[in-house]
């Protein structure tokens, strides 16, 4: 965390400090960046965290193994379902049970729908950060449809809370398959509009190409994961390396790009959306019949020991580390959140850029602030 602890920089002649955030339109939340500037050029960036710290990890120590899952919906709120999945899988690992096939497939479909909706929001806000307002509304059109599916099946749009250790909380809604297929058809058609609006725009390409170069070595040593690292050629997709749920049943590509700049981070996410559509299409017609939940005791107690489960969220690798002393609530919980590590590379990327570039870099790293602070 080189960028986070250096406080010893003294301002030179002609330089000044500007505080971007905690309330600033392009930090997407309460992130505070202390920026040293010389005119428009950035000398140094220092992120200050803690404005939305809710001590979810400490809270979980007094919650039961059924309940602590739902607190994680508020971490990366754009991928609430995937956070829940990580926790459910970790508890299942401790109980040494596995969710029934039906639950595993539905979990995967919902996770990919979440990834789609998260990437759509990211695409919307990337356009917005670079000054194009219109993409926002186009992305929200499809995102709304996905959230409606979530609403119907899970009962909530954003914080789904649909998973329990051992499977799903309830069976899927009868309309689930039909509506998902309709939405996928629509999304596939609308990718063309996405490309016309932003990807092929000359101004957009100039704003993102060769901006914020993150080389493979830095990505590795800063612990960067997810699309941000894959755009630097670092293969790190947990869905490929350690398949969980139903990912071993489907065929999909891990998107890699050697460009290392903001534009390749953008392109990786754009291609990942298409891969998500591909994964859902393979699974949606093949949801196995059977139970949606494995039977568990009313009060879940994990055996003494520690359990680790990692999943791929839209922003990178989320790790859940549970230490159990045999009681009905965890002794200690630690989350390895993707955004915290991804943020740590921002000071390196932004050095020597312009203010406009800082915004472009932040939006292509795709930060979600509550996930950083937890």
């Amino acid at each position: 965390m080189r960028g986070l602890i250096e406080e010893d920089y003294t301002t030179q002649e002609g330089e000044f400090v500007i505080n971007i955030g905690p309330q600033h339109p392009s930090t997407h939340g309460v992130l505070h960046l202390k920026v040293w500037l010389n005119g428009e050029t950035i000398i140094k960036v220092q992120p200050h965290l803690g404005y939305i710290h809710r001590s979810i990890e400490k809270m979980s120590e007094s919650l039961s193994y059924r309940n602590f899952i739902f607190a994680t919906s508020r971490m990366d709120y754009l991928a609430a379902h995937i956070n829940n999945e990580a926790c459910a899988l970790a508890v299942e690992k401790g109980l040494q049970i596995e969710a029934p096939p039906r639950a595993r497939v539905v979990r995967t479909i919902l996770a990919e729908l979440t990834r789609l909706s998260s990437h759509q929001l990211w695409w919307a806000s990337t356009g917005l950060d670079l000054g194009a307002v219109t993409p926002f509304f186009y992305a929200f059109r499809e995102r709304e449809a996905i959230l409606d599916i979530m609403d119907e099946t899970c009962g909530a749009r954003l914080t789904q809370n649909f998973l329990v250790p051992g499977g799903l909380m309830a069976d899927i809604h009868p309309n689930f398959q039909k509506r998902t297929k309709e939405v996928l058809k629509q999304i596939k058609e609308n990718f063309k509009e996405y490309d016309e609006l932003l990807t092929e725009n000359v101004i957009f390409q100039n704003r993102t190409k060769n901006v914020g170069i993150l080389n493979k070595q830095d990505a590795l040593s800063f612990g960067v994961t997810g699309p941000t690292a894959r755009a630097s050629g670092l293969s790190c997709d947990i869905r490929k390396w350690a398949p969980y749920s139903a990912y071993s049943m489907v065929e999909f590509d891990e998107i890699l790009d050697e460009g290392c700049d903001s534009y390749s981070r953008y392109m990786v996410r754009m291609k990942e959306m298409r891969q998500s559509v591909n994964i859902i299409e393979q699974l949606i017609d093949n949801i196995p019949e059977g139970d949606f939940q494995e039977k568990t005791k009313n009060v879940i107690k994990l055996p003494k020991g520690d359990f680790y489960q990692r999943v791929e969220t839209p922003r990178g690798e989320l790790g859940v580390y549970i230490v159990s002393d045999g009681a009905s609530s965890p002794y200690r919980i630690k989350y390895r959140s993707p955004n915290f590590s991804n943020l740590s590379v921002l000071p390196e990327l932004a050095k020597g850029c312009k203010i406009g570039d800082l915004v472009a870099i932040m939006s292509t790293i795709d930060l979600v602030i509550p996930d950083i602070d937890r």
Partner: protein
Amino acid sequence: MNRIFLYSFTEMALYIHKLLENAITNTVLLQITELAIIGVTLLISLVILCFFLGWMERRVAAFMEIRLGPNRVGPQGTLQIVADTVKLLFKEGLTPNKSDKFLFNLAPFIVVTASMLAIAPLAFAKNFSIYDINIGVLYVSSVSSLSVLGILMAGWSSYNKYSLLGAMRSGAQIVSYELSVGLSLIAIVVLSGNVSLGEIINSQQNGWWIFKGHIPAIIAFVIFIIASTAEINRAPFDLAEADQELTGGYNTEYSGMKFAMFLLAEYINLFIVSAMAATLFLGGWMPFHIGDWESFNKIMDYIPSSIWFMGKTFIIIFIIMWFRWTFPRLRIDQLLNLEWKYLLPISMVNIIIVTLIAIMGWHF
């Protein structure tokens, strides 16, 4: 009262002039009264124009963004902007504690005044302008560059680094793009051999300059649209405001009516650059004529000149709005590169070609 009266603003103005002449015998008093009437009419019509532009911008934006836009207050939401103005009127106009209070309060008025001044030589209809000054082109380009003063004042006096950065960006931007705007204006001045806007319009009687001036005139037109969009700080060149980078730039600290003044100035500027483009390149109020198609030209003549002028102006306004709502914003160094490395050299070569065409008489 004949039929012409209804169509011609000139006749209307002369009619009012005659009425006043009969009522007031003192010539000095007469002139003061007339100036006051013109001033009040201008202010009211500009405010109405800005209301309309504000409504149009919202509806155009909504159309591009697959949503409806304001459609509740008044017919088709036309009164929404009036409601918003009333809300702004009631808001407290905050002045930051350590700001330079005199400059802070003066800045919005400088910006609005500078943009209003530039409206004087524009011909809204056939032979109908407030003051057809004989150096109209020079006057407009010099007066419109005053607004950068107001923006710099606003940024400097706000005691806010975001404002200062925005003002500095705006200064660099407006000063740079002024050159390209000026050079494209000169292209038309060279072709028509005149700096008076009225004379330039008259020179387009047998065809607009964009058609008569071959490709160089089209290049000048495109450069004019790009450069003047940058000069009035509109997206994709809205770096001075840049919500996502500078949280509003030079007008971050402004609220209430002082903020509304900046908006008013923005819309007046939008109208002026579009009107200038329409006047210089598309013949102002001149109807569309094709060579010697007598009957076609007759029909075109029946459309009132004010409608011709407004039609052309609003088409250009729509184009400028169109790229505001579809393009991302440029970065400051890219913005300056675009001007100094591309637009300015092209304009300079263009002006040589235009001069050659004018000297040899190759234009139609």
